[in-house]
């Protein structure tokens, strides 16, 4: 690890001001991703601003019937919170499908959104990587890319720059639930819809999300509808637990009898951000649940997908996972 200085922030204003003073400083919350990357020299902040004492550690009701998750609530406390477990079981299950009990006790909700890709080349300073060092090339496209993206990898210039995935499980559920991200920064507060928080790599794969430099996540807001009756989080991975997703699906349905009146589908492990296609979800409106309908939707969700060799199996795997997750959500058979 490189030498760095340390500041313990005692409030939101203090944290933001410290960061504004030193552009190469970084906030640290649970530390489970940042310390890992610092040990590998992939992240080299000159100062850590410890935000753990900030008063962002509670889960509260919002005016419109939803819940506000403080940025520093741990992943474990979120998943086991009574209201989250009851009204947002999709979120609780997604969180509990991630990492390990120890890590979930440390990892925070804000940090989970900001975690970086697990692309092996991103971690390996000896290899080119456009995300770590823009312009150096991508080692994964023609390398070992079993865990990599199959959707949204295009770039305006035509040359694919990065096929990394966003590794979070929690974020897949948050995308399906259409959460919003509350942030504050040197220029004040703003709200970022979840679909606009993470981004596709395009020509600037070094940028993971739309948070501006120096902005701090203060909370994640869940809308009132948690789709708690008909939902499923399906995670497929190389071992039964404690492994990142190869493909994951968050499926949420609103049903009247057999008929689907609203649907959300978000995919993890396939793109640089949780993958949604609202126009495909709309194909389910007014339909009655059946595997045939779900198969059509699965094909449409994967439209334009491209494999890079080792990860080509994900094209079929993702389709089957979508069908199964929707069938589980609809309680078919």
């Amino acid at each position, binding site marked *: *690890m490189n*030498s*760095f*200085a*340390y500041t*313990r922030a005692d409030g939101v204003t203090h944290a933001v001001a410290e960061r504004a003073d030193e552009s190469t400083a970084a906030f*640290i919350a*649970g*530390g*489970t991703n940042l*310390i*890992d990357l*610092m*040990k590998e020299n992939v992240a080299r902040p000159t100062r*850590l601003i*410890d935000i*753990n004492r900030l008063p962002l550690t509670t889960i509260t009701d919002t005016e419109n019937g939803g819940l506000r998750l403080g940025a520093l609530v741990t992943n*474990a406390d979120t998943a*086991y919170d009574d209201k989250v477990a009851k009204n947002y079981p999709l979120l609780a299950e997604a969180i509990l499908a991630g*990492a*390990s*009990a*120890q*890590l979930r*006790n*440390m990892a925070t909700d804000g940090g989970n959104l900001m975690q970086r890709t697990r692309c092996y080349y991103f971690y390996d300073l000896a290899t080119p990587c456009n995300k770590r060092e823009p312009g150096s090339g991508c080692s994964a496209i023609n390398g070992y890319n079993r865990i990599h993206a199959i959707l949204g990898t295009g770039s305006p210039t035509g040359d694919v720059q990065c096929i990394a995935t966003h590794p979070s499980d929690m974020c897949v559920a948050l995308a399906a639930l259409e959460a919003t991200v509350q942030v504050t920064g040197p220029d004040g507060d703003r709200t970022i819809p979840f679909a606009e928080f993470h981004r596709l790599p395009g020509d600037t794969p070094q940028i993971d999300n739309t948070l501006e430099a120096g902005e701090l996540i203060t909370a994640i807001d869940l809308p009132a509808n948690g789709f708690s009756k008909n939902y499923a989080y399906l995670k497929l991975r190389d071992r*039964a*637990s*404690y492994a990142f997703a190869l493909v994951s699906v968050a499926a949420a349905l609103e049903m009247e009898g057999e008929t689907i009146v609203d649907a959300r589908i978000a995919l993890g492990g396939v793109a640089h951000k949780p993958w949604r296609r609202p126009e495909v979800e709309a194909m389910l409106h007014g339909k009655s649940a059946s595997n045939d309908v779900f198969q059509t939707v699965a094909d449409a969700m994967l439209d334009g997908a491209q494999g890079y060799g080792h990860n080509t199996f994900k094209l079929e795997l993702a389709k089957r996972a979508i069908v199964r997750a929707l069938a589980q959500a609809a309680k078919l058979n």
Partner: protein
Amino acid sequence: MTLTEKAAPPMKQPPSLPAMHTVKLTVNGTETELQLAPWTSLLDALREYMHLTGTKKGCDHGQCGACTVLVNGKRINACLTLAIMQDGNEITTIEGLSQKDADGKDGLHPIQQAFMDHDAFQCGYCTPGQICSAVGMMNEGHVKTADDIRELMSGNICRCGAYTNIVDAIQSVMNPQPDAA
């Protein structure tokens, strides 16, 4: 161009020694004050500065669980947190798990005893982490079945593959319901 012109410019400031920070930890009931560089992980603070080598370093990247300790009763990976971030907190390591029995003598924690009774280790390297993790899991209170034990202990890898006996040992203390058929 001369050689001197091509050489890298001298550093504006010579590198300085890191500022040390005072970190107060209550480790296994004893309050301790350490002077540490900010990058010292909790794991290194325990092992290198307090000589509590029961807690093991396996991967140093959160991937194995060998470094599991309890912070304010909750299990975490000591390798992925900085000691300075834990300032003021109560740490329990494998060395602090034994309990006084009725006669005031040190006795093993029931989980420790169960690991011995069930032969729940081979080389023993993962064992302190397994035991601290199991104690943390008991504190959390989310185990209903033996399957829950397997899932909630998945953050502790055993390279020797002593898993069956580890689950048996924990089960003997926690008495969960049998798995659904």
